[in-house]
C-alpha cells in the first residue's frame, strides 16, 4: 500500500518537475519581490526604531511584524501601545486603518482556495504591496504560478521582519541617511499602475480609481480617504458594468 502510494507521489513529482522548474520559480519570486525589498526594509527599520523609542525591546518588534504584518497598522500600534489605549480602541482603530483590505481578496478567492493550507498564509500576508505584485505578475511557462505567489508573499514578509528587527536592534547606529527611500513604494505602485493600464482591455476601472480617490482626498483629507474611495469605486464600477464587461470579454478573446 505505502509503496504504491510513494510510487504515485514520485510519479506526481516527476510530472510536476517536467513542467515547472523549482529553481526558476525561486528566481522568478525573488525578482518579482525585489521591488518591495528596499521599501519594506526602510519602513520596517522606521517601525523598529519607533517601537524601541516607545520603550519596547526588539522582541516585540519581531512579534508584531511576524503576526500583524501591516505597515500603517503597525505604526498605529506604536502609538496605541505608547498611549496605553483601551482594547476596544485597539480593535476599532486597527479594523478602520486596515479596512481597505476587505476589497483585496475579491480577486483571489478561487486562487487562494486552490492553494489549501498555504492559501491561509496568502490571506494573512495580503498587504498593499504583495497584493499589487500578485495582481501584476504573468509567470512564464517554467514557473509554477501557485508556488511563485506563495514565495513572493513569504519573501515580502521576511523583508518586513528583517527591516523591523534591524531598526529595533541597531536603528540608531545605521550611518546611512535613508530619507526618501520610502519613495520606492510610490514608484512600485506607479509601475504596476502603468503595467495594468497596458494589459487591461478597459481603462474605466483605473480612471474610476483615480477620480474616486482624488475626490475623497480633497473631501476628507489625507488620513481617512482610502476606504471610502475604494467603496465608491466598487459601486461605480458595478453601475458601469455593462460598458466594461464587453471590453473585458473582447480583450480575453483577442
Amino acid at each position, binding site marked *: 500500500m505505502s509503496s504504491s502510494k510513494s510510487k504515485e507521489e514520485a510519479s506526481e513529482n516527476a510530472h510536476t518537475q517536467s513542467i515547472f522548474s523549482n529553481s526558476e520559480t525561486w528566481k522568478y519570486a525573488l525578482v518579482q519581490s*525585489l*521591488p518591495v525589498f*528596499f521599501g519594506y526594509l526602510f519602513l520596517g527599520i522606521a517601525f523598529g526604531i519607533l517601537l524601541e523609542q516607545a520603550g519596547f525591546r526588539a522582541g*516585540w518588534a519581531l512579534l*508584531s511584524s511576524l503576526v500583524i*504584518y501591516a505597515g500603517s*497598522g*503597525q505604526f498605529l500600534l506604536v502609538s*496605541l*501601545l505608547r498611549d496605553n*489605549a483601551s*482594547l476596544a480602541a*485597539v*480593535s476599532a482603530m*486597527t*479594523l478602520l486603518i*486596515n*479596512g481597505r*483590505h*476587505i*476589497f*483585496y*481578496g*475579491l*480577486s483571489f*478567492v478561487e486562487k*487562494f482556495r486552490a492553494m489549501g493550507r498555504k492559501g491561509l498564509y496568502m*490571506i*494573512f500576508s*495580503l498587504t498593499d504591496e504583495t497584493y*499589487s505584485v500578485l*495582481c501584476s505578475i504573468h509567470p512564464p511557462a517554467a514557473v509554477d504560478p501557485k508556488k511563485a505567489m506563495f514565495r513572493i508573499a513569504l519573501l515580502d514578509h521576511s523583508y518586513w521582519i528583517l527591516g523591523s528587527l534591524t531598526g529595533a536592534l541597531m536603528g540608531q547606529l545605521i550611518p546611512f541617511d535613508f*530619507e526618501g527611500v520610502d*519613495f*520606492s513604494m*510610490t514608484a*512600485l505602485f*506607479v*509601475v*504596476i*499602475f*502603468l503595467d*495594468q493600464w497596458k494589459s*487591461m482591455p478597459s*481603462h474605466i*476601472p*483605473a480612471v*474610476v*480609481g*483615480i477620480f474616486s*480617490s*482624488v475626490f475623497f*482626498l480633497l473631501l476628507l483629507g489625507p488620513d481617512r480617504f*482610502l476606504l471610502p474611495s*475604494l467603496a465608491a*469605486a*466598487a459601486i461605480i*464600477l*458595478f453601475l458601469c458594468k455593462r460598458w466594461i464587461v464587453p471590453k*473585458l470579454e473582447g480583450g480575453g478573446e483577442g
Partner: protein
Amino acid sequence: MTPGRTLLVIGIAAVCTFLTRAFPFLLFGGKKELSPAVRFLGNCLPSAIIAALVVYCLRSVSFDAAGWLNGVIQLVSVGIVAGLHLWKRNILLSIGGGTVCYMALLRIVPALLS
C-alpha cells in the same frame, strides 16, 4: 504596561488585521461557484485599487507655502519613474532610478534654493 497586556494588544491587532484581509474569503470562499458580480469586481477592482494606492502614496503633496517644494519633487520623480518605465519596461530600473532621483532631488534642490 505589563508584558501580558502588550501581548494582548498585539494579539488583538493581529486578529483584526487578519479579519479585514479574510473578509471576502469568509463571505464568498465557501461557495463552489462565484457569482458573476463578484467575478466582475475581482477582475476590475485591482486597476482601481492600484490607481487609488498611487494617489494614497502622493497624499502629502500640497501646494501651500510649506509643502510645495516637496510636492513638486515627488511629482517630478513620479514623472521620471513613468518615463523610465514607458521607455525600457524594466521594473527594477524604473523603481531604482526613480528612487535615486527622488533622494538626490530631496537633498540638492532645497540646498540650491536656500
